[in-house]
């Protein structure tokens, strides 16, 4: 137990030191902006496809499940639409979507930085007098923080489109679904979803970068770091979700 606590504290200390190095002013704004735009594209724009696809199908499946398992003659007709909206807004489009992104984006970040570490590309940056942590990690964190609200909004929208697709299949009528989606709508829930996703985006980018940056060894260790990055950031997202939901509700 002591050993585990010691290892956790040592890793947490290393993480804080790394973040201290990351949050410093860029040496060249021109290069920083170039990296920032590249990361927004690589981490955000390239994730749109998977976010839309998963959100569409989950929206549809939630709608079908609610209709089949909860909707009954003595419940209002808008229940299915209402519940679908609440699930998408409150949990799926922020927390679950970020868990999925921690797999895609987190492993991408950890393996990219980890490979740079083991092939001495990070050493090459350091030798040139560049703050490699800030140069590599800051654009990733800011890039993902910039793109995540858009991904959340796209996810919500495509979840609803998926729900409407079930209306075409005859699971629910369009009028009932629309009524449910609009019933007792609380705008704060959208903001809550976005605020939560910003915290999760920071966790994904910073934790994955930490595991990639601190790799020692070869390709086997890069693979291990990539797995660790996904597992640890997923766990942290789940923990953070509890506190943020409590705090923001």
């Amino acid at each position, binding site marked *: 137990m002591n050993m585990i606590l010691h290892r956790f504290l040592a890793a947490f200390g290393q993480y804080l030191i790394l973040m201290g190095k990351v949050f410093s002013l860029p040496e060249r704004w021109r290069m920083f902006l170039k990296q920032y735009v590249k990361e927004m594209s690589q981490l955000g724009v390239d994730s749109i496809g998977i976010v839309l696809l998963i959100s569409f199908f989950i929206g549809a499946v939630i709608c079908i499940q609610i209709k089949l398992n909860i909707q009954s003659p003595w419940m209002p007709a808008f229940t299915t639409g209402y519940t679908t909206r609440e699930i998408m807004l409150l949990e799926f489009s922020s927390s679950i979507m970020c868990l999925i992104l921690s797999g895609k984006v987190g492993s991408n970040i950890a393996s990219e930085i980890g490979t740079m570490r083991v*092939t001495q*590309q990070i050493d090459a940056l*350091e030798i*040139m007098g560049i703050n490699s942590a800030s140069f590599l990690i800051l654009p990733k964190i800011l890039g993902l923080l910039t793109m995540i609200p858009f991904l959340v909004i796209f996810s919500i929208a495509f979840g609803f489109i998926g729900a409407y697709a079930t209306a075409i299949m005859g699971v629910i009528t369009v009028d009932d679904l629309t009524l449910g989606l609009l019933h007792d709508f609380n705008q704060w829930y959208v903001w809550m979803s976005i605020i939560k996703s910003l915290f999760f985006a920071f966790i994904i980018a910073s934790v994955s970068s930490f595991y990639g940056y601190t790799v020692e060894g070869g390709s086997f260790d890069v693979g291990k770091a990539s797995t660790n990055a996904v597992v640890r950031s997923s766990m942290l997202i789940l923990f953070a979700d509890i506190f943020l939901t409590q705090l923001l509700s």
Partner: protein
Amino acid sequence: MIELRNLYKSFEDKEVLHDINAVFEEGKTNLIIGQSGSGKTVLMKNIVGLLTPTRGQVLYDGRDFVQMNKREQVLIRREMGMIFQSAALFDSMSVLENVMFPLDMFSDQNQADRERRARFCLERVNLKGAENKLPGEISGGMQKRVAIARAIALNPKYLFCDEPNSGLDPKTSLVIDDLIHDITTEYRMTTIINTHDMNSVMGIGENIVYIYQGQKEWQGNKDQIMTSTNERLNSFIFASDLFRKVKEANGNA
């Protein structure tokens, strides 16, 4: 000129470098040689500042790198160029972008001038025509030449090469050696090469430091190696039949 004074390096209880004193001269190809595990890579890392010595001084033209603050170290680092064993090219960038990278980071020249300088460096290492290729699309020898072009882009005062011939065939190794030697003489750089390639030692070894189990065992040049009576050095240098025969032939001549 780079000078090491009483340099020690330990990892926890294990002492890897012990009281290293050496001078690496300007305009010369200075070689650090030694068996695998002798501590030469650790020594190189201490010189360039990737590791901090436990004790001792690393003097860059009289300025102690170890005692400098971060800002001063960054400024010195901008006078360094380094060629890594694996070339360490940025694999998401083209050859031209790799060479332009230090210029983009530190030069105040406009885009056209930076590109002109990068193309000049690529021509200098005979790599004209490969500008738009990615590092993964070119051979190991070409990658090393791109690394040399990147290292000299900012006209460094100090050039470091960590096993530059590693993984290259003997002919390509000679090309790389000659290139490093020519550039060192041309730009009056202080060049330190970490190697265990005996062809390099005999070809461009103007000042050679032999490291044995973390200590400086011998220092001299390629001609003095032939006549050295140091047993450890001889057993390392003349381990191969070919070099033993060369030595015998030299002795008979």
